Structures are given as structure tokens and as C-alpha cells.
């Protein structure tokens, strides 16, 4: 197989500009994730959600922009910071929130919780708590696509911290070697818990991490949903066209702590505030929409109200839905024989 040069930053094509409808849909979708996560944080504080809960606030443009590229048979897999991905994939806010509260109507019947949710219907393969595991699993999804030759692409998300795990590179090698249809999306939010990329990575330009395997990589402004989509279209075309994997490094940022119990001493308030003020993906898009004359204040408020009521309804559902029956403790350990 011919060697390919590693692509560097910028040079994303303007093959297609999202139109008004699409941008408004992105806006709503990102807002839904933001409000959902704020509410999840609140429910956690009230003790209704337990364990680990990793919020997606700040990173909304990545899931929303990439999801818009996904075809009906394509698959998605990610780590434990998964709420935003599930909402973007079309899973219902009710089922996600009810899983967070550990109730029976939750996506995993209350057995998985925040970090472990799945939707066969939405092509969402989890929700994984072990850092890096999803990269090999996602490469396996792509292997199945290649095996069946069904034109589907696997979208595999992982963090800047996960990008240091060995199995990531073992997977990269096989993905390129066998030309598997996979798009690797590194959500570089600059920190893995309290460790910045600079303190953990000898090569901090993570889009170059595929270079010794001949996987093309590209850096993308992950706070700009249109840029994310553009890069996604290109990467998916590459993978779908039988050219093997493609690597996107999304430069993004998480506003909240790593999980709920993060004292956050490894960065300054000013750093967070500066990103919120200058790069917020939702405000950024709102300004753009307003600039184009595609969104006025009343419409923005109406969207916000609609989203808030969806979230409030989901929260109320999740608060009052029943817990699993005690017998559920023993179900789903093995596949029951189809009688």
C-alpha cells in the first residue's frame, strides 16, 4: 500500500456549507446537551445520580457536528463522557436521564449508569468505563463493516488521555493494514483528569499520532460545529471509500470538572472563563446565526424554552420512574436461549 503523507492542520475544504435549517438544528441539539448536562449536575448534587458522572459541557460541537455526518448504518462508540453523544445520536433524553438515576426505563434498565449506556437502535455501542477500550472495540466494529462490505463507517471517539493507551496504537496498525472503515475522533479537551496534554504526551499534536501507521490526520476547531462537520464529511468519505482509517483531532475544552468530584486545581478559573467567553460553541453559533439574520432573540428564547421543558420533563421522569425489580439483578448475565 502506498505511503501517504500526514495531513497537517487548516486546509479543510468548503465543499459544502450547512444551510439555515441545518445550523438551527445544530443549535438546538447543542443547547439540548448543555441544558441536559446542567440538569444532570444538579440531580447529582441532590443525590439522585450516584457514582461517576462526567459532563460534556463545552464539547457539544464535536458530537453534534460529527453526528450530522453519520449514515444510517454507521456506528458510534465512545468512553464514559457519553451523555452528549447519546443525545446527538437521537437517544431520548428520558431514557438517558432515567439511566443516570438508575431507574428501570433507563437505556440500560438502570444497570449501567452514566458510563455504560448503549442503544442498538441508534447504532450507539457505548458508553465504556475503561480508558482506551473503545478504540479497539470501535476498530472491531469497522472490521465487521469491512467483512460484510456494507459501506458502514465506525466513528470512534476518545480523549487526549486515552490517546496514550497502547491498545490505541495496536488498533491503528490493524486498521490501516486492513483498510478498515473507521474515523478516529480524538476529543482533545486538553486535560485527562488533572493532567494536561503537555504533561502526558511527547507528541502533543495528536492528529499526528497516526503518522507512523500512515493514517492521515487533521486538526479541527472542535468548538466550531461547522468546521467539525466539514472535517467529518471528508474523513467519512475517505473511510467509506475503502481508503482505511482517518484521524481527526478536535481541539475542544471541558468547562466542568473531570467528574463531579474534581477539585480543579490544575487550571485556573480565568482559563475556563476565557474559553467560555471567546470560544463557546453555542454562543459562537448563535452569533453567526444572528449575523446571517437566521435567528432573532424571540426565536432563540423559544428554542431555549422548548429545550428546557424537554429537559425538565426528562428530569421529572427520571426522578419518579420506578427502580428495577429485585429480580432484575439476575437477568441479562447470559443471553437467554430463544425458546
Amino acid at each position, binding site marked *: 500500500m502506498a505511503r501517504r503523507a500526514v495531513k497537517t492542520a487548516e486546509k479543510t475544504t468548503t465543499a459544502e456549507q450547512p444551510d439555515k435549517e441545518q445550523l438551527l438544528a445544530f443549535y438546538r441539539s447543542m443547547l439540548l446537551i448543555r441544558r441536559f448536562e446542567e440538569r444532570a449536575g444538579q440531580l447529582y448534587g441532590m443525590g439522585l445520580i450516584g457514582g461517576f458522572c462526567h459532563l460534556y459541557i463545552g464539547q457539544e460541537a464535536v458530537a453534534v457536528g460529527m453526528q450530522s455526518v453519520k449514515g444510517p448504518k454507521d456506528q458510534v462508540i465512545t468512553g464514559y463522557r457519553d451523555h452528549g453523544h447519546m443525545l446527538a445520536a437521537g437517544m431520548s433524553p428520558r431514557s438517558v436521564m432515567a439511566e443516570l438515576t438508575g431507574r428501570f426505563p433507563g437505556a440500560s434498565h438502570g444497570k449501567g449508569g452514566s458510563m455504560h449506556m448503549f442503544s442498538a437502535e441508534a447504532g450507539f455501542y457505548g458508553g465504556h468505563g475503561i480508558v482506551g477500550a473503545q478504540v479497539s472495540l470501535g476498530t472491531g466494529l469497522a472490521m465487521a463493516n469491512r467483512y460484510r462490505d456494507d459501506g458502514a463507517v465506525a466513528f470512534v471517539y476518545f480523549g487526549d488521555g486515552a490517546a496514550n493507551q497502547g491498545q490505541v496504537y495496536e488498533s491503528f496498525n490493524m486498521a490501516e493494514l486492513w483498510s478498515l472503515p473507521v474515523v478516529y475522533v480524538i476529543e482533545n479537551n486538553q486535560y485527562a483528569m488533572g*493532567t494536561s496534554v503537555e*504533561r502526558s504526551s511527547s507528541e502533543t499534536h495528536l492528529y499526528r499520532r497516526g503518522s507512523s501507521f500512515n493514517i492521515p490526520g487533521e486538526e479541527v476547531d472542535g468548538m466550531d460545529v461547522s468546521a467539525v462537520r466539514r472535517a467529518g464529511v471528508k474523513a467519512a468519505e475517505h473511510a467509506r471509500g475503502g481508503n482505511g482509517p482517518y484521524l481527526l483531532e478536535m481541539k475542544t475544552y471541558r468547562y466542568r470538572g473531570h467528574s463531579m468530584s474534581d477539585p480543579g486545581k490544575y487550571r485556573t478559573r480565568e482559563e475556563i472563563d476565557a474559553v467560555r467567553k471567546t470560544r463557546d460553541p453555542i454562543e459562537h453559533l448563535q452569533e453567526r446565526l444572528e449575523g446571517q439574520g437566521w435567528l432573532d432573540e424571540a426565536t432563540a428564547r423559544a428554542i431555549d424554552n422548548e429545550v428546557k421543558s424537554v429537559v425538565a420533563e426528562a428530569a421529572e421522569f427520571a426522578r419518579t420512574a420506578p427502580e428495577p425489580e429485585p429480580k432484575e439483578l439476575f437477568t441479562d448475565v447470559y443471553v437467554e436461549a430463544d425458546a
Partner: protein
Amino acid sequence: MTTDVMMPALSPTMEEGTLAKWLVKVGDAVKSGDVIAEIETDKATMEVEAVDEGVVESLLVPEGAEGVKVNTPIARLSGEGTAAAPATPPQAAAASTPDVQEKKAESAPPPAPAATKPAVAPQALPEGDTDIPADAKRVKITVRDALRDAMAEEMRRDPGVFLMGEEVAQYQGAYKVSRGLLEEFGDRRVIDTPITEHAFAGLGVGAAMAGLKPIVEFMTFNFAMQAMDQIINSAAKSHYMSGGQIRCPVVFRGPNGAAARVAAQHSQDYAPWYGSVPGLKVVAPYDAADAKGLLKAAIRDPNPVVFLEHEMLYGHEFEIPEVEDWLVPIGRAKVRRAGSSVTIVAYSRMVAVALEAAEALAGEGIEAEVIDLRTIRPLDHETVVKSVMKTNRLVTVEEGWAPMGVGAEVAARVVEHAFDYLDAPPLRVSQADTPLPYAANLEALSLPSAPRVVEAAKAVCYR
């Protein structure tokens, strides 16, 4: 319309905290994301962000207040009631008012027993315990600090000892066990690694082969599964395979077992996994004195030691003898409570469950002898056998699964060495034979609890 801001739970195990500082005052306008207060827990100081928007109407808890229970109102906001109010259904908007809170208290799942049990008071030591000198002065210390002190003392004593792992240095440990070590020993000896368990465990084994004494921290033992090959194939076997030439004096340590509500992939007891491997020593202490004394012994041990801690015990205070160079020998169990009716064998956090059960049993005239294994390999079955010869009955308690587990091993040894003394088949209390579920009610059903131990003890006593 007003909204109360509640004292938030900032971690899976937090029940109360100190309101260290208010960063807003009455009359300030806040919006979602603004930092309004600083809260201190036993682990750290954290910032509290507003979720709702509004104007601060009153601060209900003064700055500096300690022991503020999770979910008590700490401030009241008056909503500017523009966008949010009309669209928010009434129940949800009221979710933070006291009356709905009461309803929540009824309908909310009972918290897992693990999260709410108070520290079990240190037991009076039975006669004949030689571990703690009778005249030793005792001080109170948490398990977390005992572990830290053990590492610090050994690092002072031996320049070859160093600590590596994820978040151990600048962050002071994901569970704050290495607090202060970076400051004292510098970044040559307290080393933050990338998230690369398989390789840094290998580096630890390699450095040990070269004569250093690494302490490799796993953020939790769940992540050590990435590294299991190096622990078992490299660390445990190299001495044997080299005909005694190579040594691997490495300590692998970190929290093991179930915390609270962190679900299947983050809640496993690895004692039986490592306990089955020759070449490894495996330690799982319960109280602070053992945590410190055994960790110091593990660091000095010329063999690879897997040191299993428990997150739910980190914050518990115990008395510890104030003696210089406190060491507890690896390989010796401890009788935590003397009794003649039934022997209950446990380790790590399950010792607390066993002691609680023993108290309840005493109320019904059953005197249980509680044995804390402390070391899983080599297993001190002599102490257990001696006890069973007296009580004629055995119950084992472990947080993990029963099949092929520690209880199975203990029972087998008792059957081998004291078959004729048994008046009833041994019983094992363990986690249900399923992955650990997230839902609060199922989690509580799954994990061993004092009532289940009481039930088992009564069964072997035919009561």
C-alpha cells in the same frame, strides 16, 4: 419565584462538608456556571457552580459552617423568571423546595449500605495479640493518611523507593493518598504517568529488576487489568524463571473492590485473581494500623506485592500505635473479635461488615469470632483452623464473587485441616453472581451486608 441552592454532593461518597467560603453576596446576580461558593470535603476543596440563574436573596448557611449535610439549602435565589420559568413544569421547578425533598426522601432508593455505614469503632483487642505493644500510645489517623505515612517513611529510609502512577504527584492522588509526597520528595521520586497502565507496570517491574523499589499506584485495581500480564507473567515469575537471579521488589497498590454506585467496570474484588498466582504476595488490610504496617512491610519485601486498598475505608479513622517504624508482618491473620459460637472470616472492608454482624449476633446470644485475613497470599489458614477447632462453624465474607473465590479457598483449607471439627458445612457470603449493577436498590441487594452475614451465621449454628 425563588429557588434554593442545595449543599451538593461532590463525590460518590460525600455525605457532608464544610462551607469554606461564599464567593457571592446577597444582591449578586448569578447565572449557570458562576462559582458561588467553595466547599471542603475530607478530600479537597471544591468550587460550587450555580445551576439556576437569579439574584442571591439570602445565604442560609454561614461561611465556615462545618458538617453541612448534602441536600440542605445553603442559599436562596430569586429567579428573574424570564425565559426559564414559564417553560419549566411546576414539579421540576420545585424539585429543590423542602416539601418535594421530603417526597424524594421517601421515594429515593435507600443508599447502598456501603455509603452510609459509620466507621466501626476499633474493637478492644483480644488477649494474646502481640501486634501492638500494650503500653504504646495511640493516635487517631485515617487509612488514607496511614498509607501516605507508610510511603513517606519508607521513601525517607530508602532512596531506591519511588512512587509512580496516574495523578499521584501534582493532583496529590486521585483519592488523595499521596498528598504531600511530591512536595517532600520532588518529581524524581513522585512521578505522574500518562494513562498507560500496561507499560508503566512494565516499567515498574523493569526498574525493580534493576534494583530499585518502585511503588506502582493504580488509580483503581480495575485499571490494573490492563497491566495484568506484566504483574503475573513478568513480576511474579521472573525470580523463578531466572533460577533465583532476578528479583522484582515492586509494590502494586491502589483501591480494590466496590466504591459506591460506580457500576460493573469499576467495582471488582481482585483478591482471588492475584491470590491464585505463585510468586506474588497479596495483602488486603482493613484498619489504619494494618494499612501502614503492612504497606511498609510490602515495600521492604524482596518480592512483588499486590496491595489491595479500599476506597470506602480511606476516610475512616482508626487508632494506630505511635511506635517508631511500625511494621506488620505479611502472612498473618488477626483475630478481631474473640468468640466461641462461629468463626467469621473476612478481609478489607468486609471486616467492618463482619464486626457489625458479630455485634448483632451477640444480641441473640451467638458469640462470633471474627478473623481478619489481612494477607490473602500466603494465606494464614492456621489462625482460621485454630478458631474453627474451637467454634466448629465457618462463615466467610468477601466482596467479590463466590465461585473460585477467597471464601472457597478458606473453606477448602478448613476442610483439609479440620474436617472432623466441623458441625455444619461452611457458608460463603459474597457479591451476587452477576456484574455489579448501578441502580441503588440492586447494588444494595448485590453486595454482602451485615444482615446477610447474620443469616449465614445463624444457619451454620442451626438457629
